[in-house]
């Protein structure tokens, strides 16, 4: 086999491993949230600035919800009994609102400090 091609493959493979290692290294701040009776529990959460955040949202209701935020532009449907993850940020300091698009009374805030 052509040696330059082998080198190319090794390079491609190692950069893949590098990328994987990078994404594994970037530890995320995990924020678990429950959707219960069409409300977020807890509805006020916080995270440090400059860290990537991983929302883990579980829907304990019998109807679908949509975890959404205009401030950090995310939307994801959460089927009843299911759990979803949503990656956000790293964010700057400030307050970010999130809501359930299907149940507009369900609102919460993420305080980034």
């Amino acid at each position: 086999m052509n040696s330059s091609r082998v080198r190319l493959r090794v390079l491609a493979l190692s950069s893949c491993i590098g990328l994987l290692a990078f994404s594994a290294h970037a530890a995320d701040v995990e924020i678990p949230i429950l959707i219960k009776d069409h409300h977020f529990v807890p509805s006020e959460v916080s995270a440090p600035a400059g860290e990537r955040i991983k929302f883990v949202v579980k829907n304990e209701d019998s109807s679908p919800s949509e975890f959404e935020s205009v401030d950090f532009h995310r939307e994801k449907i959460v089927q009843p009994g299911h759990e979803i993850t949503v990656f956000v940020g790293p964010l700057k300091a400030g307050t970010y609102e999130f809501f359930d698009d299907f149940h507009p009374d369900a609102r919460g805030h993420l305080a980034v400090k």
Partner: protein
Amino acid sequence: MLATLIVVFREVLEASLVVGIVMVATRGVPGRGRWILAGCAAGVLGAIVVAAFAGELASLVQGAGQELFNAGVLFAAVAMLGWHNIWMSRHGRELALDASRIGKEVLAGSRPMYALSLVCGIALLREGSEVVLFLYGIVVAGDSTLGGMVLGGALGVLAGLAVGAALYLGLLAIPMRYLFGATSILILLLAAGMASQGAAFLAAANILPSLGDSLWDTSSILAERSMAGQMLHVLAGYTARPEGIQLAFYLGTLLIIGTFMRLARAEPPADRPTRTPAVPEVR
């Protein structure tokens, strides 16, 4: 009832604005009604299927199925909008200059209507599946009467369609000689906005980095959830607190489609239709 109305209205509005733009862009194209209707019908059917398998879709690819699906259909729509604009750049002038009615029809017939039809279908697929899930949720939770849900849903659909129709009628006021340029810009902005949304989905799934958050914050000037903010969000990708990857995709889309449009305009089309019409012209 009111909650149903508002949620359904928001979703229908998004799809209806997209279809409104497509209808303006295809003004005067023979058979466009059938194309658009077929796209919309396919979109509604697709929405029901997507809603029915939402749980399965979400759990695909280690939980990133929803994001990949949304980003995929959005980028497909971006490609179709771009292809339409590039095609129009290549043939638009001919369309305007070709005096013969038959020449115009030959050209108009080869216009990539399937591209815009698909864009309508994708808009209805995305928004429609949310409406289906939302309405299904109301039935399951039983926190609204069936009559209230149907009435709220119907009013929401009508209100959403009304805004789309108003946009369409408003844009029809653009004089024919500016219409080509104006719709090219509208479609370009629509494509850039969709690309930016698609990028946000990939960032949500941790496939793309966010490249900085809240590059600016104009939410105090124009809130994204306000009526005007939401319309601008759909039509031109307005984002009050954009993240870097969204801006990169937005500008990248403008640049790539814009460059191809320019190139298409520069070179004379090779596949121009024959000058002598197949059927003798009536004098």
